[in-house]
């Protein structure tokens, strides 16, 4: 039996207040986020798809000299354990361990970026 692989997608999004706009590829996210936040414009800054093995770290470059690192650490029933780290200028500023529903996603947001904020939507599927 082969080792479980974790297909991990990261979408880096710029959210701002202004004329309503949703980039293609964000149609699944924007309505739900708009129900919580005041932002009306959502633009896709970057989209990365990675296939990671358990314990393997994926890296995504973020604006402002930041890096997002993700590492799947295994399965807990129907949830994938992920360790997620954000480094700024090579210093860790954020870390979390989550149990992500298989085929589900989480959004981390808040850092200021170009008259708006940065959102990072992370989704994972175990195969």
């Amino acid at each position, binding site marked *: 039996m082969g080792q479980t692989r974790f297909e991990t997608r990261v979408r880096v999004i710029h959210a701002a207040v202004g004329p309503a706009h949703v980039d293609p590829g964000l149609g699944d996210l924007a*309505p*739900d*986020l708009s*129900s*919580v936040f005041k932002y009306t414009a959502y633009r896709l800054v970057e989209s990365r798809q990675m296939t990671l093995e358990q314990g393997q770290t994926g890296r995504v470059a973020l604006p402002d000299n930041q890096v997002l690192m993700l590492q799947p650490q295994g399965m807990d029933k129907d*949830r994938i*354990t992920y360790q997620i780290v954000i480094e700024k200028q090579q210093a*860790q*500023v*954020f*870390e*979390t*361990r*989550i*149990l*992500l*529903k298989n085929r*589900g*996603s*989480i*959004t*981390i*947001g*808040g*850092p*200021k970026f170009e008259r708006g904020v940065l959102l990072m939507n992370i989704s994972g599927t175990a195969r």
Partner: protein
Amino acid sequence: MGRRPILKLASLALLVLITTLALTMDIFQGPAAPSAIVKSIDYTGASVMIMETENQHQTIIWLFET
């Protein structure tokens, strides 16, 4: 064939259908779970807020820098 047996058969068929749908569609399950459960969190900024959207139960971690 009389009316009564047909009605009984129809009732039974309806009961089977509802039970099948309930089992396959989780009709009688509890509230939907959040997309992510946060086990630990560490942030050098001011504060963190964890929330869940109402419609899709998507977990959001919000970082307040100042």
